[in-house]
């Protein structure tokens, strides 16, 4: 059965897949994680995760996607149904539709922040003296202070920008794979790299922005990010009738700062300096969890996107080199560009105190706007940086829509116009929910945890087990290499069948332990407390409604899958002459 659509060029599909992967995480989340977990140790765990999780799942998704596409299936439920051939098989695939759909609902909201900020720099209204000022602007812009306050179309509100992002995404997705997604990525991805290089050159030539604070400079900013040994100043706390404890005060970066810290510690019995070396840091399970998680989110594996994109390939299209190229493009953007921009720039202006412990949003939308507004030609570079984030976000959000479009067309036998209309309505309701319940970004945060983190582990584990154990390594290996110009080392047969699933299950085990059950904390995690309540912490209605939205989406996709199942099976039997 011929494909309904296909990519126009090999470079087009590579740029589309890498565009799906390159997003805010490359420029904001990754550097924050490297700095938090100590450059060398984190990078070691990161590269191991890349080899054991990222590349194997990526190749598995490309392969299963192309296999499905050859039989006319482009959605995860359809492809899973083809591979598993059991009545329950197709239902495993509903996560491959639900994950990108739910993530889109809040991701487009963040995308609109990037657009709003980039235009804010053009208008010259992003002039902040302190992080508190820029934080207040962000809170007002996205409505973090009160539910419903983000709704509106004024220039200082997110609503208008959200509408523009929605319109752009749906215009491109309506144009289809080649004329919409591919064409946009062909221009957006190179533009994104050029913008990142320009900003990087600006950041690396910042030197010491404030001569009165010579330690706050770019070299020390890079050291804060990449130094493998962390030097920490700790303070002693003496508990009543209990053992004394030492807690971290600050990290010391730069020879002069370390020397001053050592002198301070020598003068006080309640202070001390400790060095955390690379192998000591590697013993921390949280570091491995963070590195593996970063690989997941960064490469878009387990999102249900690559499998759909790959289903529009032709039978003998090379997926080994294309897959490697797309992942390497993402890694280049993440490590070589993203890893050198945001943290060093923020450090040069604010020092350790200004960047330590800042999450993705804090760094991106509170710290960096203030940093850009403080540097020469700040409005220009602020605009370029947030426009770069906007481009990265659009190429990612587009990729989240396509799996759902493919599913609706396949399951309901409708055309592109109808599927776009249904998806537009559904995502408008979902995004409306996220934007309305904007207080403390509660709805966004809850959806991101349960769908954008938890379910991704589940889907990725399902995919690699499916490839290694259901498709089987012998057949899978042949499929991987059909039309390939380079060969995957044989060692990966063993890795894909045994190591990747085991590694994923171990990481998932730790994830549930630390982030759901709250091991090492005072109780279960806040995400669970929000749902069931707890001592002194009532449940959150918004969190419950968010999980309700996830369940409704899963039920809807499950029902639609059920209605299409008989037809899919009949079609497969007819093609194979068993009916």
């Amino acid at each position, binding site marked *: *059965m011929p494909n309904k659509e296909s990519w126009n060029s090999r470079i087009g599909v590579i740029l589309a897949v890498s565009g799906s992967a390159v997003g805010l995480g490359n420029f904001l989340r990754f550097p924050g994680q490297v700095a938090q977990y100590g450059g060398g140790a984190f990078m070691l765990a990161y590269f191991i995760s890349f080899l054991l999780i990222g590349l194997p799942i990526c190749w598995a998704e490309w392969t299963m996607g192309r296999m499905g596409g050859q039989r006319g299936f482009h959605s995860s439920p359809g492809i899973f149904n083809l591979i598993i051939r059991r009545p329950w098989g197709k239902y495993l695939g509903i996560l491959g539709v639900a994950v990108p759909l739910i993530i889109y609902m809040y991701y487009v909201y963040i995308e609109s922040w990037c657009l709003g900020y980039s235009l804010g720099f053009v208008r010259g209204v992003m002039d902040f003296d302190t992080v508190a000022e820029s934080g207040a602007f962000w809170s007002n812009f996205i409505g973090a202070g009160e539910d419903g306050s983000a709704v509106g179309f004024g220039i200082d509100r997110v609503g208008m920008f959200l509408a523009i992002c929605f319109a752009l995404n749906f215009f491109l997705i309506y144009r289809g794979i080649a004329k919409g997604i591919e064409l946009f990525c062909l221009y957006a991805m190179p533009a994104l790299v050029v913008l990142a290089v320009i900003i990087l050159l600006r950041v690396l030539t910042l030197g010491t922005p404030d001569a009165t604070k010579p330690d706050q400079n770019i070299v020390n900013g890079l050291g804060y990010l*990449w130094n493998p040994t962390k030097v920490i100043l700790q303070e002693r706390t003496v508990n009543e009738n209990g053992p004394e404890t030492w807690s971290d005060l600050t990290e010391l970066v*730069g020879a002069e700062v370390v020397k001053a810290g050592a002198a301070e510690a020598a003068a006080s019995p309640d202070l001390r300096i400790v060095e955390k070396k690379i192998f000591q840091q590697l013993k921390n399970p949280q570091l491995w969890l963070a590195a593996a998680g970063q690989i997941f989110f960064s490469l878009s594996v387990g999102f249900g996107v690559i499998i759909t994109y790959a289903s529009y390939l032709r039978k003998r299209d090379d997926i080994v080199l294309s897959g490697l190229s797309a992942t390497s493009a993402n890694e280049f953007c993440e490590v070589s560009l993203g890893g050198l921009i945001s943290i060093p720039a923020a450090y040069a202006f604010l020092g350790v105190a200004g960047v330590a412990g800042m999450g993705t949003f804090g760094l991106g939308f509170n710290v960096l706007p203030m940093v850009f507004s403080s540097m020469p030609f700040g409005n220009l570079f602020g605009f370029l940086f947030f426009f770069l984030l906007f481009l990265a976000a659009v190429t990612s959000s587009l990729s989240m829509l396509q799996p759902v479009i493919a599913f609706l067309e396949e399951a309901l036998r409708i055309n592109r116009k109808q599927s776009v209309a249904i998806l537009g309505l559904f995502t408008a309701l979902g995004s409306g929910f996220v934007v309305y319940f904007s207080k403390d970004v509660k709805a966004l945060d809850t959806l991101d945890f349960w769908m954008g983190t938890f379910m991704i582990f589940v889907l990725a584990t399902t995919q690699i087990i499916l490839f290694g154990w259901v498709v089987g390594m012998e057949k899978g290996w042949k499929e991987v290499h059909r039309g390939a110009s380079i060969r995957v080392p044989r060692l990966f047969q063993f890795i894909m069948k045994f190591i990747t699933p085991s590694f994923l299950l171990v990481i998932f085990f730790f994830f549930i332990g630390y982030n759901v059950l709250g091991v090492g904390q005072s109780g279960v995690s806040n995400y669970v407390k929000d749902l069931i309540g707890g001592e002194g912490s009532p449940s959150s209605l918004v969190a419950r409604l968010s999980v309700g939205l996830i369940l409704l989406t899963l039920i809807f996709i499950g029902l639609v899958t059920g209605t299409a199942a008989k037809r899919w099976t009949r079609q497969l039997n007819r093609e194979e002459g068993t009916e």
Partner: protein
Amino acid sequence: MTLGGWLVMVLSVGTVSSLFFWCIYRISVEKSTGNEPARKPDAETSGPGHEA
């Protein structure tokens, strides 16, 4: 920034950049030698969603 920091940065950035530029080189070599398969633009044909 310590010597270790410089080493980690150069190795990390160097590794991913080398891989990226090697991939670009391989693809451009295949394109210039004509090994890349010819492609056609979008064509609206049948699929499971358009079954008669």
